[in-house]
Each structure stands twice: as C-alpha cells, then as structure tokens.
C-alpha cells in the first residue's frame, strides 16, 4: 500500500446540491492530511463517503488500498472514525464503551484489556474509566471518543472536526495526542477543520475545500507562499474611539481587502500593496482615531482561503475567531509593536 487514500472524481449530490464535486486527492501513508473549509464546504460528506457510510453519486476511492464500494467490508477493517457527533453511549462507562467496540472489531480479550488500559492512561482518564460517559465534560468525552477510534489500531484514521467545541486545554492536549498517534503508530490521519491554526499546526498537507471542490492542495508553508509575494498586510488593530465613519472609510480604501470588526474597538484588516500598512494607519489618523495597539500577522491559511476564493472564511465562522487568536505557543509567530 503506497497511498492511504486515493479519490478519483469522487462526487456526492443531494438532489440538486453538489456537496462534494469531483474531488481528486491522494493521501500518503503516514501523513496527516487536513481538509480545510468553511461550514457546509462538504468536508463531512467527503469523510462519510470514504468511511463507507455514504454511497458516492459518482467517482471512486480507495482507502487503505481497498475500494470503498466494492470492498467496503475490507475498508472498515482498516479505518477508525472520530466523527462530528461523538460515538459513545452516555449510560455506559468508558470501559464498557471501549469493550463494546473492541468486541465489534474482534479484538481478543487480553489484547483489548491491555489496549484499553494503555489508551486510557495516554489520555489521563484512568481515574474516570468506570464512570458513565454522561457524567463527563465535553473534553473528557472527546478523549474517550478518540481512543475508541484507536482501539483497533487503524491504518487510516478519519477525524471530523476533532477539537470543535472543546475547551482550550483539551484542544491543545488533543492536538498533541493526534501528532503522537501519527508518529508512534504511523497512522495516516485525515482530519477536517475550519480552524486555520489547527491545519497549520498539525497537517503535513492541506486541501482547501470550498463548495465541494478542492481549490488548493499543498503543504501549509507552500500555500502561504502563494500570497507571500503580494505584500499582503494582515493587521490586528485596536482603536478605543472607533466610529462607524472610520469603518466606512477603511472599507472604501481601494488597497484594503477586508475589514472584520471583532468587537467595539477591535479590527482585523487585510490590505494589499506596498503602502498597505501606511494606508491603514493614515485612514484612521485622518479621522482622529487613536491607535492603542497594532499587531501585524504573518499570512495564514485564512489569507490563502481569501486569496483563492475571494471570500472571507472568518465571516462564516465568526464564533471560531477566538481560537484563531488564542493559537498560543503553537500559533503563527506574531510581530507586535507599539505605535507612538
């Protein structure tokens, strides 16, 4: 097996809606492949087809070397799934949940017990092993949900938004855990996310998906280079006396590509051209705006998305903006400076 996943013109239509549109991707063995796109882009639909949960309308795919239609049983033996909704029973304990799925994968009793113990320890959940899942926090649930998918030591692991809705600490831990599985077991991982940091941090390669189509596919670094040469300024700026008039003026600046108002005093601005940075500052100053703080951001995958699709990804996922900022130590390096 050379390729973990190969898709050829994989397509899914729901009546008139083309949710996944002739997708061709090759995921290498041992790779972490990210599918990045806004809500409704077709990430989940693509994953579900690859997991044999959904029949494609057109095209084919091979997962772990097996055809997802003709050899769906074989495919199932080699994959693990962490889906958007957690696959766990609230009234069963962690151990009981793991036992059920272990049995469904025909894992021998001894092996199952050993693995259960080891995995629970890895995610620091031994203490809770005998409590019903219903009593857990979301972060705790997701830890168990992920190790459930790992019980059978799959060759290919699918993770659909694995950190969605989790607290920052769980998010960080789970991201580290994903990296670890990938390295230790050489598990090929395909994960979907609409968070730039996540794709940036974890993935060897990222496919950007928009309206069912793969619009770009490369390493995060190369993707960022696409727009790197274009003098794009990405600025995080705080103006205590921000007015609507100022906002309008900024939006009307030809060099400014987009303005997102984070809150009363906070703006995220992107601009193109050599003088982009000066334009932003001048426009604000000309309207007596006080600039309390400016942070220039390195181009992120988000900029790539904007660049390629011409649309703001953030506007569609505004609730997730904070996790972008709170990228923490793994986040993109930021260049901060105080303005006089």
């Amino acid at each position, binding site marked *: 097996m050379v390729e973990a996943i190969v898709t050829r013109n994989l397509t899914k239509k729901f009546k008139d809606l083309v949710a996944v549109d002739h997708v061709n991707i090759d995921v290498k063995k041992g790779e972490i492949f990210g599918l990045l796109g806004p809500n409704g882009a077709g990430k989940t639909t693509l994953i579900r087809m690859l997991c044999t949960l*959904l029949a494609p309308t057109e095209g084919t795919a091979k997962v772990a070397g097996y055809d997802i239609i003709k050899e769906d049983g074989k495919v*199932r033996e080699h994959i693990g799934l962490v889906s*958007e909704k957690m696959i766990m029973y609230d*009234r069963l304990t962690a151990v009981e949940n793991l036992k059920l799925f272990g049995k*469904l994968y025909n894992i021998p009793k001894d092996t199952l017990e050993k693995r259960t113990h080891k995995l629970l320890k890895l995610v620091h959940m031994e203490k809770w092993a005998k409590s019903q899942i219903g009593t857990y926090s979301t972060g705790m649930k997701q830890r168990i949900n992920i190790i459930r998918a790992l019980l059978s030591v799959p060759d290919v692991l699918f993770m659909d938004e694995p950190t969605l809705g989790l607290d920052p600490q769980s998010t960080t831990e789970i991201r580290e855990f994903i990296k670890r599985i990938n390295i230790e077991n050489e598990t090929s991982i395909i994960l979907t996310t609409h968070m730039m940091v996540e794709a940036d941090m974890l993935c060897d390669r990222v496919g950007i998906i928009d309206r069912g189509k793969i619009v770009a596919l490369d390493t995060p670094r190369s993707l960022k280079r696409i727009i790197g040469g274009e003098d794009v300024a990405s600025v995080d700026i705080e103006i205590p006396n921000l007015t609507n008039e100022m906002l309008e003026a900024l939006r009307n600046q030809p060099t400014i590509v987009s303005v997102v108002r984070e809150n009363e005093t906070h703006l995220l601005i992107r601009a193109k051209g050599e003088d982009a940075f000066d334009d932003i500052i001048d426009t604000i100053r000309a309207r007596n705006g006080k600039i309390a703080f400016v942070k220039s951001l390195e181009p992120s995958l988000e900029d790539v998305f904007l660049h390629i699709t011409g649309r703001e990804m953030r506007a569609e996922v505004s609730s997730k903006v904070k996790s972008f900022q709170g990228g923490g130590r793994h986040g993109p390096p930021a260049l901060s400076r105080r303005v006089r």
Partner: protein
Amino acid sequence: MGAGDTLRHSLWIAWKDLLDLWRNRMAMVMLILMPLFMMVMVGYIFPTESALENADVGLANEDDGPLGIAFAQNLTYVSEESGLMSLKDSTGFDDIKQRIRDGELAGGVVIPSNFSSNLESGTQAVVEIVSDQSNPQISLLLQGILTKVIEQMGTWRAIANVSFQLGVNSSEALAIVKPYTVETRGIVPGNPSYFDFVAPGIMAMTVMMSVMTGLPHAISYEKEFGTLDGMMVAPIGRLSIILGKTIAQTSRGLIQGLIVLGLAVLIFGVTIQGNFLLLLFLLILGVLSFVGLGILITSVARDEQTASMAMMTLMFPMMFLSGVFFPIQQMPVFMQYIAWSLPLTYATSALRKVMILGADVQSISTELIVLITFGIVLLAVAVPIFKKAMKK
C-alpha cells in the same frame, strides 16, 4: 463473515442496548407501567355483567289487582336477592322515560292495568320492559336479566297452577311446563370471563407495540445521535446491527408481555391452560413477525418522529382489527378479510388457543406457518432496503 461472528456481534449490541435500558430509570418505569395501564384500562372500561351491579330500575305498577301487587313484590324480592338491580317506585311509562333521561334510572318495568284481569280470565298477561336504546350495552344486559327474571316468575306460577290442577308434585309439574332444558358445558374448566378472552390479545399487542415502536426508535435515535455510525463503520455485518437491536427489543417486549401475563393471572384470575413454553415461543415468534415491518418503516422514514408517526398509524387499526378486543367473527365480512391479513390476528388467535383452550402445536399450525412466513418475507424485503437507506 461467518454466522458465528454475526451472532456474537449482535449479542454485544443487544448487551449494550439492554444495559442502557437498565440504567435508564425513566424507561424502566415506563416499561413496567405501560402493560399495567393497558391491563387496568381493558380490565375496567369494558362492560361486563358486573357493570350492572345495583342498577336503578323503575317499577310502575298500574294494576290494582292482587296479582299485580304480588308480582311487584316478587320482582322486588328477586332483584334484591340477586343484587343486580335496585327497584325504584314509579308512576308509569312517562315517569320512567323522564327519569331515564335525567340519568336517574337505567331502565324500567311497567305492570299494565289489565295485568290481574288478564291472568284471572285465563289470558297471557304482559309485562313491559322499558329500555334505553341510547345505551345499547346496558339496555341489552338489563333486558336480558329482566326477561329471565320475569320468565322465571312465570314458570313458578305455571308450576303452581299445574301441580294444583293435575295433582302432581312440583318436579313433575316442571317437566310438564318446561319439557326441555338447556345445560351449557364449556370446554374450558372454570368460568372464563371477558378477561380471559382479551388477555392473550393484550399480550400479543404489548409485545407487538414494544417491537414496532421500540425498534424504529432504537435505530432512528442512534442515527440522529450519530452513534449508529460507530456500528456502521465497524467491520460487522449489517445483519448484526438489525439482529442486535431486535434481540434487545424482543427481550424488552417479552418482559412486558410477561408482566401482562403475571397481572392477568394474579389480579384478574386468568388461568393458563396450555404449555407455558409454547406460550413463550409464540410471543417470540410474534415479535419476529413484526421486526421486518419495524425495520422497513425505519428505513423509509427520514427521522425518528416520522418513524413514530408511521408506526402509530399502522398500529391503531391493527389493535382494533386483530380480534384483540372483539371477536373477528362479529365484524363485517370485508373487515374480516383485512383482519386475516394482519399478523397480530394470528398471534392473538394462537395465543388465545394455547392460553384458554390449552391447544398444542398441531392445533395452531396454521397460525405458526402464517407468522413464520410473514416474518421471513418482511425481513427479506426489509434488510436490503435498510442497507441501502443507511447509505443515502
């Protein structure tokens, strides 16, 4: 994938479902309450003879003669002794009619003014029974009882007359007056009530409802919750999933069926004449004949709500057409055809034969064959549809 694997996987799925049910306190309470309600409801809403306990019946004696007065006294005595009705004095037909309308009386008896004179002149005397046709059940019962009582009183009078005139003793006189008499000899020991009639049907129905609502619920719920994906993506046969769910729901249905049986025996005095194991086997077979239907509806319905609605729509006619509450033979002919095309009809019929009549396997072979065929055909249709629907 071998049959052993399929069975083993399905047992684990059933284990999970039953463990989940066991820990769901609300569901456990409902599990026990549902058959209880069912039994109590059926036990007490349907009219039985005891419904006529102490019914108020108007008695108007328009006859002044001694025979009229004697008749009225006799009737009062008999009704008091039997405890079936309590006679109230009335002035006549119109008064009784008015008081039935007011809800004071259930019916009435009128002794016409020519009662004594007719009897004395050797003519038949008429006693009028006033019946309220707007309440056919009660009116029928009342008519029956009154007719019987009055006829009995007539017989006594005839015996007295005959033995006096012919100089024979009263038993000889009885043989002259009533040369024929009827003795009913039931094939069931004891005195089976309406409850013995309905109990098997209610058992069949409880089990059916348990599976028909339980199965779609169990599958659609997991589908909506996303946990079904966990089983669908595991390397197990699709049949294991269906089988596992079925085993769990069958167990649930059986527990409810047995609760019904227990209540019927302990509280309502129903006796089981047949083999208990055969009864159990029939219940399981009944369940299996509905599984296909349950899966079919789950596959076709988009979400849990639609599935439940479809189930209800199917279940109600079944409940009333399958001879659970009323004998099928009483229905109009075309309804009988419908009844005999429902699996519940056969399950009810077989259970009834085994429970009340003590029938053996041979006497219910038709029912067995129909139930098995029904189950297999529906399952054969449902499983492929289920597989396809899950991948849409």
